[in-house]
């Protein structure tokens, strides 16, 4: 089956001489929910910008559903829907017009575009705002407007560059539900995000990019299996003042008397509970100290830092 996206040897050097991408290879399968993660300036937006033809590549190949952007750009674009990081619509135009005009650029006649626009504006809770100028919308509404605009021509591949940046928790979760529904209906989704919780919740495949190179590209399950240590916060039935002795586990108290326990891969949390029970300490609740993916991400990026620095020094 053709991949939704195939990138080979992609490089980008800006006019200033800055090498943003140093030969990226990436494949995204049809139907996948894919996260492209990386610190600021790693090359995420440049990569997606090239795919969407907002950035010109220096070298390499990009194919969208088998359509090479060098030879079949128009076909490649027909398969693509793009939700950029920053608001990029005319602030003075009305919500409905913004969506139908975008459909017009894809050659969809107004009558058909109006039906599609209504469908997505309703799904994203913006139908009541259809006659409102875009500048009057809240930040969350503007983000949803960009999603409706990107979907109006029913693309097979949806690219979202930090779609939930600055959006409150409730709205973020409703956007996640919407994106999951789109993915279930067959739309391949690629997103970049700084909320690693978002990537862990939504995505099945994850690539990590740093200093213009892909340093990891695998399934989420495989990635999380590499997590050798997790730190749990345990709330006891009373405030602890001394650190209990836990055989085989490293533990300490945080500032508020909550117990932090490091659990290595292969160790069982039941051992922790049993040993605490024997010392008369009952655990009433527990949570992980950090998002699992976040821990891995930080570790990988830190691990890559010396190599990237050495390369930059050369």
């Amino acid at each position: 089956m053709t991949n939704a996206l195939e990138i080979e040897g992609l490089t980008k050097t800006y006019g200033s001489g800055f090498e943003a991408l140093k030969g990226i290879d990436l494949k995204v399968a049809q139907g996948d929910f894919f996260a492209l993660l990386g610190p600021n300036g790693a090359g995420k937006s440049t990569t997606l910008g090239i795919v969407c033809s907002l950035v010109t590549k220096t070298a390499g190949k990009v194919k969208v559903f088998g359509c090479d952007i060098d030879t079949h750009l128009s076909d490649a674009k027909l398969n693509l829907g793009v939700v950029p990081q920053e608001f990029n619509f005319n602030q003075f135009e009305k919500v409905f017009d913004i969506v139908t005009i975008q459909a017009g650029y894809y050659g969809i006649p107004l009558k058909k575009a109006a039906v599609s626009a209504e469908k997505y504006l309703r799904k994203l809770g913006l139908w009541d705002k259809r006659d409102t100028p875009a500048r009057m919308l809240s930040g969350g509404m503007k983000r949803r407007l960009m999603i409706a605009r990107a979907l109006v021509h029913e693309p097979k591949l949806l690219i979202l560059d930090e779609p939930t940046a600055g959006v409150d928790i409730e709205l973020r979760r409703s956007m996640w539900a919407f994106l999951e529904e789109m993915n279930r209906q067959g739309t391949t989704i690629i997103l970049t995000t700084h909320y690693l919780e978002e990537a862990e919740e939504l995505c099945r495949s994850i690539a990590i990019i740093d200093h213009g190179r892909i340093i990891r590209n695998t399934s989420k399950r495989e990635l999380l299996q590499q997590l050798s240590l997790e730190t749990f916060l345990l709330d006891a039935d009373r405030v602890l003042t001394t650190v209990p002795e836990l055989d085989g586990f490293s533990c300490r108290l945080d500032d508020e008397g909550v117990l932090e326990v490091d659990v290595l891969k292969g160790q069982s949390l039941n051992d922790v509970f049993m040993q605490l029970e024997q010392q008369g300490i009952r655990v009433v609740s527990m949570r992980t100290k950090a998002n699992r993916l976040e821990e891995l991400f930080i570790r990988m990026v830190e691990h890559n830092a010396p190599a990237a620095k050495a390369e930059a020094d050369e």
Partner: protein
Amino acid sequence: MNAQALFTAYTTIVLREIRRFTRIWAQTLLPPAVTMTLYFIIFGNLIGSRIGEMGGFDYMSFIVPGLIMMSVITSSYANVVSSFFSMKFQRSVEELLVSPVPNWVILAGYVTGGMARGLSIGVIVTMLSLAFTRLQIHNLPMVVVTVFLTSALFAVGGFINALLATKFDDVSIVPTFVLTPLTYLGGVFYSINLLPEFWQSVSMANPILYMVNGFRFGILGVSDVNPFVSLGMILAFIVALSFVALKLLARGKGIRH
């Protein structure tokens, strides 16, 4: 994209442009009407009555074609340069760049939008001029062809300006320092036959002279230059500037990183 889809994309751009300048009519349609009325009153009536005839016509009749053309040129150019640059500024140009619309359709759409405003102004100014003089049409096809082509030419010029502009100042530099002087020195208010021979030759290098005179020929039947040379010049400029605009678009000048 098939022909039907291309036409839909083209009309989308054109209608969007028309909606834009009609929505802000007080900024786009009204000012030239006011300015040209003042020209008619001051230059045509007050000063013109003391000047007497020019080119065999009373001064008001002589300047009307030039003033109509001047307003068409300015408005066609201003519409495209301000609309496309503000799209760049707001980044809403990305809506077009991610879509499959070919560059030539983008150019054609904006140029038609600019022409729509330029020609609307032309009609408004023509109607206003009827309050001051009796317009006769010597050669209607010449009038129509000249005004359409001139409007198209300056709309393409505005598009190139918008692509190259990096800040709002760049949008006003060409109209202020190039278009306005060339228009005023392009025979709007006088026949170049009044100039010394040397300045007549210099004036012949001004492309706007050909447009104003081509249009004047269509209305009054008099011209300082051969009207068919005028049409040829305008067409040549349209081809050359369209080529430049498409090259810049293909390179992503000012719109792609």
